[in-house]
């Protein structure tokens, strides 16, 4: 086989997610009353990017064969923090941004430390820390409110050159600064290795613990970037329990749509980003068709099931039934 075929096989999940997104978005913008305009794209991008950041965070942890049920709460907590801190002069705002991102890193590091060094199951550990993070968010913002540096917010949610959504550019920058170095570093590979077969990774002398710790920590950072952007879009902070939980669950759906294996060791954050964008578009499809919004969750669920099933077709070709369970 030629090199490009191996590359294609490796990127299959990502390409499938990209394909689903393109189809969904074509249907969406084709039926939108305003059509495919810069405005429509900007609005869609701003909504999609939030979930994309949280889904990237989830990807890092899922690659290690873990799961992070606190991402949505880190997202909520950092939103509340940003509504206090990202305000004032340029210097003050910069300090606020750093503090918010730092908080995300610490939250992720706490998750990592509990899972790796405390040897707790990721599900239980992150349910618990998620509750703690939400509790902190509630203390910061018992009622919705606060404000944000609107110049910065408008800059990052607006358009460059009148057409390119700034939030998409920001997403691209984060991919280049966080995901690409991570996935190509020794620790990134350790995270994949640990997710695929922890015993084999250990026997091979792979730095499993550092790889996993970095994955959890960066996941916290990415969720915090998401929280920051939420503040830029809403201009306020809100400790919304339902929204935090929804982001956690949607991030898992986005990750699966993006071809990342929940068993670990396989997939890419790029796929998860397209998964997130596709998921958001599915959610918005109903509006352009003028259906009753009551139908939205049901419709979204059905489309999600169909999309996820695309990946399961390979099972029909299995000839040894034992491979069903692998």
């Amino acid at each position, binding site marked *: *086989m030629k*090199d490009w075929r*191996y*590359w294609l*096989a*490796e990127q299959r999940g990502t390409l499938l997610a990209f394909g689903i997104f393109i189809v969904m978005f074509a249907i969406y913008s084709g039926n939108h009353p305003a059509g495919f305009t810069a405005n429509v794209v900007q609005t869609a991008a701003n909504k999609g990017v939030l979930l994309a950041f949280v889904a990237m965070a989830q990807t890092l942890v899922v690659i290690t064969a873990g799961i992070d049920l606190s991402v949505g709460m880190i997202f909520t907590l950092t939103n509340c923090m940003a509504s206090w801190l990202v305000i004032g002069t340029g210097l003050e705002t910069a300090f606020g941004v750093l503090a918010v991102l730092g908080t995300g890193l610490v939250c992720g590091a706490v998750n990592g430390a509990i899972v790796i060094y405390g040897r707790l199951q990721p599900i239980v550990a992150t349910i618990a820390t998620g509750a703690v993070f939400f509790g902190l968010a509630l203390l910061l913002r018992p009622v919705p409110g606060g404000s944000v540096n609107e110049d910065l917010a408008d800059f990052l949610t607006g358009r460059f050159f009148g057409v390119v959504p700034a939030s998409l550019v920001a997403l691209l920058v984060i991919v280049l600064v966080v995901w690409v*170095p991570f996935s*190509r*570093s*020794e620790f990134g*590979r350790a995270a*994949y*290795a640990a*997710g*695929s*077969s922890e*015993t*084999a*990774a*250990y*026997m*091979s*002398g*792979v730095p499993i613990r550092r790889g996993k710790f970095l994955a959890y920590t960066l996941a916290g950072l990415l969720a915090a970037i998401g929280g920051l952007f939420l503040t830029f879009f809403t201009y306020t902070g809100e400790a919304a329990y339902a929204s935090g939980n929804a982001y956690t669950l949607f991030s898992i759906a986005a990750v699966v749509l993006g071809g990342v*294996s929940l068993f*670990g*060791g*396989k997939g890419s954050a790029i796929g998860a980003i397209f998964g997130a964008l596709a998921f958001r578009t599915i959610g918005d499809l109903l509006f352009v068709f003028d259906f009753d919004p009551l139908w939205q969750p049901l419709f979204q669920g059905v489309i999600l099931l169909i999309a996820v099933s695309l990946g399961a077709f390979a099972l029909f070709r*299995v*000839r*040894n*039934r*034992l491979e069903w369970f692998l």
Partner: protein
Amino acid sequence: MDGAAPLFRMEGISKRYGGVRALEKADLTVTAGGIHAILGENGAGKSTLIKVMAGVVAPDEGTMTLDGREVSFASPAAANQAGIVCIFQELSLIPELSVADNIVISDPPKRFGMIDRKAQRRIAEEALARAGASDIHPCALVKDLPLSRRQMVEIAKALARKPRILILDEATSALTAADVAKVFEVLKRLRSEGLALLYISHRMNEIAELADHCTVFRNGRNVASYPAGSKSDNEVVELMIGREYSHIFPPKPGPTAAATTVLEARNLSWADRLDNISLSVKAGEVVGLGGLDGQGQRELLLAFFGVLRGLSGEILIDGKPVSIASPTAASHGRIGMALIPEDRKTEGLMLPMTVRENLSFAALDRLSKGGIIDRAAEQRLIDDMVGLLAIKTAGLDIPVGALSGGNQQKVVIAKWLMRQPRIILLNDPTRGIDVGTKQELYQLMRKLADAGAAILFYSTDYDELIGCCDRVLVLYDGAVKRELVGAEITEHALIASALNIHGEGAGPKQGVGA
């Protein structure tokens, strides 16, 4: 070779797991530029010994010296650093990563803090070429490779680490004859380059071809150490088991005349793994499946047990064609088939569940009335089985994972015997269990056959096939190449036909070296 200063020395190494002694004051001396064979039965302590060397487990007592300096390894990474690299049986490859990723995994080349993919590719290609496996593409995912290719990747991966001491633990067990020959070339070249090689294998002919020096382990101790070629195979086997070999097998009843054929296959083929297989097993007969590992034996058993889809050919039970759609169908009703799987930990047992629950799983339908389990009937049957197989357990309600390997295997067998199967398929059931338990299993197998069961028995251990079977079918590349009956079943015949060598004159040594 005694004149050379030892490169590595282990003295008085002991290791206990729970109450079980795996190593008891074991010694080993390794010199550079030599191939040192380690022999011994399963459970003799060989694998624990190399795990200690490779930093996987820490010894309870004893010292290790490398270049005359005392060393201890906290992890496999530390042992690698010191130049000790172990090739485990496909244990250390990461399935979702590519071949190149795997080869450089412990120390990837870096540029600006990121992995340098070009350099990685170059290293991988070099290492594959050095291992004589340039046919493997560095971008292929390990999980997509067949077992024999994975094993070659393991070897390439070890070589890429530039070891001083290379340990091969049954590294050739999954290889085809052509690969074995290639690997031997590589090992001999490494020896001439001054590496120390530790070679662990059950194949006497491989050891005869390769080794300079041999050490035999038994019950966790090194019982003999001698230059290769100074002892006959029989002497070596006696050293390994500590008594005469023939006694551990029960006597065979000899050919039975009028028994009826219970299990029959006609022209069975599946994918590219099974090729037109026809065979029959009579009531009261033990039929062996021989050949090198991975020649389709496992698939054949799975085919009978209803696991494979898209099978062509016919399966007949009591002379009537049947179609078996699942393990449930195979074990129920008039078919009455049982499969003792190869990997008891994943396919045979639910390790965290209790001995009682594990024993009942396969027979739950027989033990329940209207969907409710009849506890009293269950208890009676379990008591029978624990007695029949002499399962040593601290109680029926402890997790089955806490039992020793031999007793776990007895639980797997007992679980199927609770259904009183008429056809018993065994997939290498004695792998990793001690000689004593093996002996009990051989006797049990013969007892079941005498009671009228038809037994199809796959083993990677030639002596077992010789000692237990009335007939042996030798598989090669998915097809039955030869049938050996009664006195024809000899080690020589088994090996020759396993390697698919024609003619009586071809000895195993020429066969492997060719």
